[in-house]
């Protein structure tokens, strides 16, 4: 199998460090030894293939998929974007998973102890597959900010967690999407783990085109994954 096309390398200018003095939990959890560089094999350029039908339309509508006896409370939003590789090719038929707090800043997760109300009609997780152009689209409720124990008076900015696969296991990405103009972003050690221009790529953009008249504001969040390098390696 000599015809493997390696993926574009991890761009360390765009990716956070494992140990980050601002984010305290990294201290005991991030690897301390340098990563070992290995040759690309078929293992890294293959990965799970999900059948798009396994994610239903309801899975992509978080305003509906947790309803019990009414509508969830909060501001309805639409979040959409394209998943591309670094060469600009759309990542097609690929699973996108999201999870988030409700409008009060509370997660359904059993270990979330934040003293803010759960919403009986909001679950806060969903998924969809990208289409032929790499486009995904969710309807949801704008998540609230929530406190966390990293330091005194620490609050996470409003954010939505994203999980993506791409062309192979080496392109796997888990990240978070933020909202434009959030005053907590400059104060948040997690967002600030990739400060400056790379952080801008994690902040969605308000879009009047995506916004639906009388229904919901629209935000665009494009995602760029590693993928097959267009030209063969020159070694």
């Amino acid at each position, binding site marked *: 199998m000599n015809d493997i096309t390696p993926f574009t390398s991890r761009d360390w200018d765009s990716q956070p460090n494992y140990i980050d003095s601002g984010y305290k939990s990294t201290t005991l959890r991030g690897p301390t030894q340098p*990563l*070992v560089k290995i040759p690309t*094999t078929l293992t890294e350029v293959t990965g799970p293939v999900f059948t798009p039908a396994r994610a239903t339309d309801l899975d992509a509508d978080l305003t509906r998929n947790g309803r019990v006896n009414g509508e969830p409370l909060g501001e309805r939003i639409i979040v959409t974007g394209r998943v591309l590789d670094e060469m600009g090719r759309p990542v097609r038929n690929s699973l996108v998973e999201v999870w988030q707090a409700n409008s009060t800043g509370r997660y359904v997760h059993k270990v979330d102890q934040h003293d803010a109300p759960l919403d009986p009609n909001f*679950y806060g*997780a969903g998924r969809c597959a990208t289409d032929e152009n790499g486009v995904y689209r969710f309807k949801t409720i704008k998540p609230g900010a929530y406190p966390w124990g990293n330091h005194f008076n620490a609050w996470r900015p409003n954010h939505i967690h994203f999980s993506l696969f791409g062309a192979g296991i080496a392109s*796997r990405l888990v990240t978070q999407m933020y909202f434009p103009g959030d005053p907590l972003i400059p104060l948040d050690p997690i967002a600030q783990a990739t400060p400056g221009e790379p952080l801008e790529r994690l902040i969605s953009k308000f879009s009047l085109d995506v916004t639906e008249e009388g229904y919901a504001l629209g935000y665009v969040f494009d995602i760029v994954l590693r993928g097959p390098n267009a030209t063969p390696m020159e070694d």
Partner: protein
Amino acid sequence: MAGNNMLKQTPSQTVGPYFAYGLTPTQYGYSQLDSLVAPATPEEDTPGERITVIGQVLDGAGKPVDDAMIEIWQADAEGRYAHPSDPRGSNSPFQGFGRCGTGPDPMNRFRFDTIKPGAVEDGHAPHIAVLVFMRGMLLHAYTRLYFSDERDANAKDPVLSAVPADRRDTLIAQREETPSGTVYRFDIRMQGDKETVFFDV
């Protein structure tokens, strides 16, 4: 490389403490959403040796991590991946991907009931790709599990050979025969003397 025309990678961010109801809901007992991904349970008719991979994720203090998520990616028993980039194509119904959180188990173990993969190519040892996600990791870690009963193949494997000899043991899962079947024990140490080798791939 396409150089300046390339788009810039989206930065990674931590999976955080609250992934389970979205990514592993069935395992954690959330009934509102079905897991798309199980811990790699093969179908009845999937060819191959049944094995269980089990282990803990240990932090720098040696404490088992109770909010990690482990994903595995592996070939079928004949070393073929169920993915279009593998020209041989897997003809088994086995998908090769699994996901397991460390929260529900009383000892905070992850557990995968799967099959032992075959060697993907000549000269390569059978292995499973392992991805480690958790609160406190801004970027997931990537490693590989190799098998203790594949000593000769491991000695020739080009990826294991890229690892300093004194650290290779961190990647070898230890085979044990138990009343309930074959178990490979694979603990993942994030830090310390026996820190698991993680790869830049």
